């Protein structure tokens, strides 16, 4: 692998700018004449806009312009879209209501944008925004899925009767019913997956610049996928044609899904820049982020699992109500359907599965993909069910799982997915050994002697990453293809630029992508530059989410490197008068195998550009591009085991040990992969123990709208983690990569809750398992 090649824990190239304060984030950007925007937002969860009076606000110092939804409509700016069509079981298309970037007639959640104020300073814009007098007529509010479906519930969009967006099914209902009719045991559970706020540490921001002379727009924005932002803003929102719109996502301070979507604010800033004639910057404050960043999860599920007398799973029935909030965000329809129910086979051989998902409007913030996106919800259902089944059947949790593991691949599940490879037992064994599962009984006895309750719980997750084969997702309703692109430019002096449609917002692409080149050509990673995040520099790309940058983005780079290598070998063979097939590339040199003839990499590159002596008919230069469309999803899987101790007097849970055994396929940079696992585990443990959104059901106010109210995991809340890898290389892509970005958040919540319920001896516990809830569960048991 070499010291900088594949498999080496190379230290990150991008770190220096971040640790010296030289990172460049959207809010750091300054352009001449730049002014500041503040949005006027609805304080009501559901209301009619009767009138907007801006006269007092317009008279405030520094105010340049105040714009509203009527003007936006006049200028032809389109509705926000949901990019994935889902059909109900009766074949009807989803009932999507309109989402205007600035609400014109009706506001549907607290935080819905109503107007934008542009002023010389942010403080002046805020002062003026406070004086925009919006007259509202309050409407009845609904925040929960059950209430929203109830007869007589407030109607949020005219298009969605009874607030039902779709009533979707997957799997064979009859086969599942038949399986249940043969069951010796049926395990039933009601499971809630709590609503979360992604909380990237960098708040969203946008800087819109309209150049009247060129009739051209530039948008700096906190995006995980600037090209998709440009595409959507051009094709659907009518901001500008693609050739007149440049989107730049510079350093981005975390995303976790929440920065995939194209939000009203960047559209409105661009439009406002043209309307007011000044560059317009908006920077979100934290409460605004809580109110308007797409939330995650929020499922209410009833699940039943049928077993035969020998404890083999016969079938699974799942009914889920997914809260999509007030509007359908970009991937909101796919998250609780094709990213959720398709993983309900888990790691297990289940002959029949039937899932029904109802997606529902409520007067809450839109809900969309958050780290894991559907797979954490599926894993939580599966692994809570398996643990509960083991307890009810009186068998050990690992043995029940072992008995039902899928052991031969490829494996076709009843819910679309074809698992390509895996070794679930290897991860289970590794995790059990790492945590000394066999020694748990004596540790529990020791805790008991101190008056404490110790528990152990596991979770065997599988997820689908590397989204995704374009034709497959297209057939399931996706509005875009999910390939990735790369361009490799070898400069005349031999240095290399890789242009990628993936976007790094913490994942370390500038290092790992350079490692691919180091591995291939033996050049140092310092001579390789990764270019991303700018639609003017990089060819079309699909961005970073769903752990796709490795499996899809790097595969595109490999394809482009293949082409570069082929041409470089041709040039070298010509110059060294050798056969092309005898050229090998090692340590930055092209060599003729079996001889002492060598040509330094840079001389080959120079020859490509001087073009004085190239093979007959060869074009000068050395630059190749590739698009890679994956042939399948990838299937990272693993086993997490958590050991906790609960203080019965306070209900406080302490995580004593947490082990993760993951199969991510081949790994480029183990240090970075470990970091991804740590971060995912922190978010998953946060969901299990600390985090949760609360809306006031009467008013629709988000109660948990600041860091004083929403509990984020801190250093003293979290343990250290023991991590190991069991590798089955992915057969579907050239690097054998499966992906690692979301596993931690997917696998950990059920492990934690299974451990706590094991400790307290009662199964009825919902996330977050706060001390108050655990204490109540323990004392009501």
């Amino acid at each position: 692998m070499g010291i900088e090649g594949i498999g080496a824990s190379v230290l990150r190239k991008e770190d220096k700018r971040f640790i010296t304060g030289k990172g460049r984030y959207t809010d750091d950007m300054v352009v001449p004449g730049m002014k500041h925007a503040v949005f006027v937002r609805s304080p009501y969860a559901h209301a009619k806009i009767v009138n907007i009076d801006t006269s007092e606000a317009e008279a405030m110092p520094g105010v340049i312009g105040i714009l509203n939804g009527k003007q936006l409509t006049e200028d032809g700016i389109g509705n926000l879209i949901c990019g994935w069509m889902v059909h109900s079981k009766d074949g009807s298309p989803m009932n999507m209501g309109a989402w205007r970037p600035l609400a014109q007639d009706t506001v549907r959640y607290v935080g819905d944008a109503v107007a934008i104020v542009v002023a010389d300073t942010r403080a002046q814009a805020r002062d003026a925004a406070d004086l925009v007098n919006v007259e509202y007529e309050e409407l009845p509010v609904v925040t929960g899925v059950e209430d929203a479906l109830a007869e007589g519930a407030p109607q949020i969009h005219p298009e969605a009767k009874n607030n039902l967006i779709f009533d979707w099914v997957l799997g064979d209902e009859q086969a599942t019913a038949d399986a249940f009719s043969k069951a010796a045991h049926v395990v039933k559970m009601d499971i809630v997956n709590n609503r979360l706020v992604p909380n990237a540490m960098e708040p969203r921001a946008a800087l819109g610049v309209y150049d009247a002379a060129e009739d051209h727009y530039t948008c700096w924005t906190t995006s995980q996928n600037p090209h998709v932002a440009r595409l959507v803003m051009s094709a659907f929102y009518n901001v500008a044609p693609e050739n007149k719109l440049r989107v730049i996502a510079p350093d981005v301070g975390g995303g976790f899904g929440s920065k995939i979507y194209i939000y009203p604010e960047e559209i409105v800033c661009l439009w406002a820049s043209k309307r007011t004639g000044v560059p317009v910057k908006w920077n979100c404050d934290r409460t605004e982020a809580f109110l308007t960043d797409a939330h995650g999860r929020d499922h209410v599920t009833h699940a039943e699992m049928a077993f035969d007398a020998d404890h083999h799973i016969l079938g699974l029935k799942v009914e889920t109500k997914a809260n999509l909030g007030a509007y359908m965000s970009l991937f909101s329809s796919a998250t609780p359907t094709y990213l959720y129910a398709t993983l309900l086979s888990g790691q297990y051989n289940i002959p029949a599965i039937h899932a029904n998902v109802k997606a529902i409007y409520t007067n809450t913030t839109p809900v969309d993909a958050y780290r894991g996106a559907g797979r954490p919800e599926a894993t939580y259902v599966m692994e809570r069910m398996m643990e509960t089944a083991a307890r009810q059947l009186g068998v050990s949790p690992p043995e029940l799982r072992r008995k039902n593991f899928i052991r031969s691949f490829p494996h076709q599940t009843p819910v679309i997915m074809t698992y390509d490879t895996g070794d679930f037992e290897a991860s289970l064994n590794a995790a059990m050994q790492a945590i000394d599962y066999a020694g748990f009984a004596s540790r529990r006895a020791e805790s008991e002697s101190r008056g404490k309750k110790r528990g152990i719980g596991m979770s065997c997750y599988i997820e689908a990453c590397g989204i995704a084969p374009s034709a497959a997702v297209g057939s399931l309703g996706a509005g875009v293809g999910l390939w990735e692109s790369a361009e490799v430019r070898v400069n005349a002096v031999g240095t290399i630029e890789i242009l990628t449609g993936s976007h790094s917002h913490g994942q370390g692409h500038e290092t790992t992508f350079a490692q691919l080149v180091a591995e291939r050509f033996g050049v140092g990673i310092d001579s390789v530059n990764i270019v991303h995040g700018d639609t003017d520099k990089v060819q079309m790309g699909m961005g970073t989410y769903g752990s796709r940058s490795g499996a899809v983005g790097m595969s595109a780079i490999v394809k482009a490197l293949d082409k570069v290598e082929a041409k470089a070998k041709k040039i070298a063979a010509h110059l060294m008068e050798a056969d092309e097939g005898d050229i090998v590339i090692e340590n930055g040199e092209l060599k003729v195998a079996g001889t002492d003839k060598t040509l330094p990499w840079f001389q080959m590159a120079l020859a490509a550009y001087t073009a004085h002596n190239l093979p007959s008919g060869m074009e000068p230069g050395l630059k190749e591009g590739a698009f890679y469309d994956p042939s399948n999803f990838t299937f990272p899987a693993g086993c997490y085991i958590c050991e906790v101790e609960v203080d019965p007097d306070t209900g406080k849970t302490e995580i004593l040990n947490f082990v993760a055994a993951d199969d991510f396929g081949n790994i480029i940079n183990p240090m970075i992969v470990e970091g991804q696992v740590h971060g995912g585990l922190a978010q998953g443990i946060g969901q299990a123990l600390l985090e949760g959104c609360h809306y006031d059901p009467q008013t629709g106010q988000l109660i948990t709208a600041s860091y004083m109210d929403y509990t984020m995991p801190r250093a003293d809340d979290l343990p250290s983690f023991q991590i190991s890898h069991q590798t089955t290389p992915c057969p579907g892509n050239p690097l054998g990569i499966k992906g690692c970005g979301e596993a931690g958040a997917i696998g950990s919540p059920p492990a934690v809750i299974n451990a706590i319920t094991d400790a307290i001896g009662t199964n009825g516990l919902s996330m977050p398992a706060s001390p108050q809830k655990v204490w109540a569960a323990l004392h009501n048991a």
Partner: protein
Amino acid sequence: MSRLNAHEKKTVTFKLNGLPVRADAESRMLLSDFIRHEIGLTGTHVGCEHGVCGACTIQVDGAPARACLMLAVQAEGADIRTVEALSPGEGRLSTLQAAFKRHHGLQCGFCTPGILMSLDALISARPDAGRDEVRDHLSGHLCRCTGYVTIVEAALSALDEIRREVKSNV
């Protein structure tokens, strides 16, 4: 005492990373905004503006402080350090910065400047700090990427290195 006007500017004079600063600030302007947008040192980040996330942590007269909980006018006469001052020289990293890189103590880098300033102050004040103290100190910051383990390891590694340096200089 006269009532302050929102738009009235006051001249503020303080030392920033060893250099004198003299500039006008509205009395309501936060020190974090003043440093970022008036002076143009954007290494100090703003994550919550209510003093909880710690991203904007700087050092005021040697002690860590939330720049979003101070007004610029309160900095009058103070000696302020930001993340830009940590590097001991062009192209060089401090022991703590180098440890962050070595231990992968950062991912997106947004919370990092504040954490570095906080830990830099801890190292000066409590060079014999151990794991629990580091975790406790670090719990004044939010990081959404790392899960904190690598930050703790980086801090302990820097502390260890600095203790050994001190010992070898005695």
